[in-house]
């Protein structure tokens, strides 16, 4: 496994860990709709990140844009965005989830990327100090 695959796998694992932590914390301290919002938002954004990753990898591969399949890549990109917008719309308008919880759930990928960035910066600075 190369370094870049390790990095993406690490971020994906951290996403699931953050979802678990935030979901359990909100189930203890917050209401059921808030917890459902965090969990569904987290699942949506993790799936979105995974599909984004696959689309971009495919787009830059030999079979993708270089192979003349540009329209299918663009269609997949917009389809992903449309599906995600539709799901968020249904969740908010139906009232099944708390919108603040949903927004927190949707931030899970951002949290894990920030966590990764802070840890890398910390490692670099401590290495420089030695």
């Amino acid at each position, binding site marked *: 496994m190369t370094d*870049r695959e390790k990095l993406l796998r690490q971020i994906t694992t951290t996403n699931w860990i953050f979802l678990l932590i935030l979901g359990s914390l909100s189930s203890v301290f917050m209401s059921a709709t808030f917890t459902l919002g965090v969990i569904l938002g987290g699942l949506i954004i993790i799936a979105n990140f995974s599909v984004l990753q696959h689309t971009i990898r495919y787009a830059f591969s030999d079979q993708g844009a270089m192979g003349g399949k540009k329209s299918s890549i663009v269609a997949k990109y917009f389809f992903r965005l449309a599906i995600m917008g539709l799901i968020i719309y249904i969740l908010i308008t139906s009232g099944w989830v708390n919108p603040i919880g949903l927004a927190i759930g949707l931030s899970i990928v951002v949290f894990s990327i920030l966590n990764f960035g802070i840890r890398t910066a910390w490692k670099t600075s401590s290495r420089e100090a030695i």
Partner: protein
Amino acid sequence: MSKRTLIGVVTTVFVLGMGSLAFAGEDSAVKAAGLWVFFGIAISCGISIGMAALGTGLGMGNAISAALQGTARNPEASGKIMTTMIIGLALIESLCIYALVICFILVFKIPDLGGMHELIVKSLGG
């Protein structure tokens, strides 16, 4: 002001004016005020999601352009560049998702029309 903009403004004013006339009853001022509030929310949501999409588009365009330039100059580093680009794109895209969520909240959750009606009645001294 171009002809299209003028037509847009005139149509908006006309529609709102007709709305106010339609509510010309005992609490017409209240309903007209509510209509204006809802109009403001709708316009602000439209503008804000447009600006968010503009910013996201510019950010993603810059990121992808820089990544492609880097890959073209140094093809061996394409893997590292692509990984970093994926992470950056996820971060940029999340901003637009936040804007979308906020717009949905503003349009579908905040305008509690019953509560707004009572509030406007109170503020008008009814």
